[in-house]
């Protein structure tokens, strides 16, 4: 890291925070603070939605995912455009018509206050715990790469977000996200372009597809129907549809984004363009990972992409590590020649090259696995999965100065943009659905704005504390990673019943939601059902039980 990198990094972050605070100062009522005065045009809504969904880990992990596993992860997003259409037809006009601050407020109109509070409670549980991880995951990677204490990166992200989210509310979140996403995409595409231009002369862009395909990275579509496989077209279309309906329709961190739209049409267009742009955006990010993979066919890749673990291994078992490193290095020259023959067929026979390349690639993988096993034998708790470090390690070692700072700003911006939406949503739900509704119902608007600011700051502190202790509790992290699936199914069941099944009334849905949630918890603690299926199980259980209860109590008033 040079002085130029530090200047670019901190200059970018400071500009975003100052712009967010300055541009949105002076919100004095709830409409302004929590809904941005319903003033956002569709493109701001769209960018805000996209920036909320794409956390730092998206930009760190996704290229690494393509590097290791190819592009099949793309199928996970196929249900998203369908969810955007359904929500544009259903949720958007309804939320706008009722002029709600949160999605859960609608549930009181349709059912009663108990159902509203229950859904708000589920949301606060899942989002309140996961916002810590939104900060923790990039903090861990950045602290490893920059050799900083993890608490420094955690507090840096947390405090920067807190400053503009507390002062400017929803409008600050949306306006800053517009610029954050622009910086993120510009930085990512620049990194991809550098990987491409570092390939041997004569390798054109269309050749990269040829290479990627023959090296097994273009596994974009899997038509096999397999419930145990997370990435095939059917799990993407069906499972993804349920997941994204819950996420965009009933998770306040997304609902809050399109509620800020200036009209139904603007909110709808924001969602529609998210449906149009999301998959191409993921394709670009995954393909950047593929380009990094191709880059490492012609430049030596590190034995382990996590530099901290590699250093530890080198210090603790220098001879063993040096032997592995030497074997690994000796493979590179030959593999590079075969890759060149792949890329530039005029240099040699392609068929033989392909076979030889795959053999050497398999040997390399084996050596990397040996290195990982060696580290595990020295430290059983070490996380040797290094795909999250592939992209950032490439950035730190192969990008010119100035751009390294920009790419680090990308990671910080992505962490800040998703954290900001989550804090804003947690504060909205706490102040509107819990505090104003059940604790202090009659007070001035100024009081609720002050309370919302206080709740935003409080959630930011909770997130930072959680991120700091997460390091010591590996099980906690695993639990939080699936916590979305533990609650989304139930919340979706409640909302689908509210939207489409007028027969179901408040008491029935309340019982249905409790039973549905207990069923999901049972699946989590006592069965081996894949956690992505919890969304469907929970949703179906809530609706079925609610229908049954409603059927058994036909005399309830309409």
């Amino acid at each position, binding site marked *: 890291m040079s002085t130029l990198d530090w200047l670019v990094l901190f200059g970018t972050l400071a500009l975003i925070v100052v712009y967010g605070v300055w541009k949105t100062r002076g919100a004095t009522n709830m409409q302004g603070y929590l809904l941005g005065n319903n003033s956002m045009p569709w493109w701001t809504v769209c960018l805000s939605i996209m920036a909320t969904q794409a956390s730092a880990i998206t930009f760190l992990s996704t290229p690494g995912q393509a590097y290791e596993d190819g592009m099949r992860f*793309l199928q996970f997003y*196929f249900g998203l*455009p*369908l969810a*955007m*259409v359904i929500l*544009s*037809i*259903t*949720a958007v*006009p*309804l939320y706008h*018509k*009722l002029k709600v601050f949160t999605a859960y407020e*609608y549930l009181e*109109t*349709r*059912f*009663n206050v108990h159902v509203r509070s229950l859904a708000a409670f589920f949301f606060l549980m899942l989002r309140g715990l996961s916002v810590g991880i939104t900060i923790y995951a990039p903090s861990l990677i950045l602290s490893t790469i920059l050799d900083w204490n993890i608490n420094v990166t955690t507090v840096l992200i947390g405090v920067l977000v807190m400053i503009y989210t507390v002062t400017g509310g929803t409008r600050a979140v949306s306006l800053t996200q517009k610029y954050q996403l622009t910086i993120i995409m510009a930085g990512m595409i620049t990194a991809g372009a550098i990987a491409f231009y570092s390939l041997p002369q004569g390798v054109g862009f269309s050749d990269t*597809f*040829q290479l*990627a*395909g*023959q090296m*097994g990275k*273009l*596994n*974009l*579509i899997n038509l096999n129907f397999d419930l145990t496989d997370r990435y095939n*077209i059917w799990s993407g279309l069906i499972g993804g549809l349920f997941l994204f309906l819950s996420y965009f329709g009933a998770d306040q961190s997304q609902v809050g984004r399109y509620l800020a739209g200036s009209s139904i049409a603007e909110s*709808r*267009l924001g969602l*529609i363009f998210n*449906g*149009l742009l999301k*998959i*191409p955006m993921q*394709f670009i990010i995954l393909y950047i990972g593929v380009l990094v993979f191709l880059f490492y066919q012609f430049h030596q890749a590190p034995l382990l992409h996590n530099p901290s673990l590699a250093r530890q291994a080198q210090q603790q078992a220098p001879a063993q590590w040096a032997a592995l490193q030497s074997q690994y290095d000796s493979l590179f020259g030959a593999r590079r020649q075969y890759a060149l023959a792949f890329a530039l067929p005029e240099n040699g026979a392609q068929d033989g090259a392909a076979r030889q390349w795959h053999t050497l690639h398999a040997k390399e993988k084996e050596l990397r696995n040996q290195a990982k096993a060696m580290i595990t034998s020295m430290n059983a708790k070490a996380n040797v999965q290094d795909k999250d470090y592939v992209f950032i390690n490439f950035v730190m070692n192969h990008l010119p100065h100035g751009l390294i700072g920009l790419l680090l700003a990308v990671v910080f911006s992505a962490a800040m943009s998703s954290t900001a939406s989550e804090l804003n949503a947690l504060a909205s739900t706490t102040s509107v659905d819990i505090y104003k509704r059940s604790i202090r119902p009659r007070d001035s608007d100024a009081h609720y704005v002050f309370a919302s600011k206080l709740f935003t700051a409080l959630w930011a502190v909770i997130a930072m504390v959680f991120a700091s202790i997460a390091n010591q509790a590996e099980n906690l992290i695993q639990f939080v990673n699936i916590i979305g699936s533990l609650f989304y199914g139930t919340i979706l069941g409640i909302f689908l019943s*509210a*939207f*489409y099944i*007028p027969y179901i*009334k*408040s008491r029935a849905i309340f019982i249905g939601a409790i039973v549905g949630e207990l069923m999901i918890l049972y699946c989590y603690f006592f069965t081996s059902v894949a956690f992505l299926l919890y969304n469907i199980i929970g949703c179906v259980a809530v609706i079925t039980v609610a229908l049954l209860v409603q059927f058994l109590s036909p005399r309830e008033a*309409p």
Partner: protein
Amino acid sequence: MTEGDERPPVFARWSGWYWLVMLFLAIQIIAYYYLMTSFS
């Protein structure tokens, strides 16, 4: 307001944008399949 009053009008406001989203999804899936089969 009584329970059940507020539900969305299903397909009441169908728009050309929705066709566009679904058409684009279909085109993308076909294009990705073509890309995969052509280059492997």
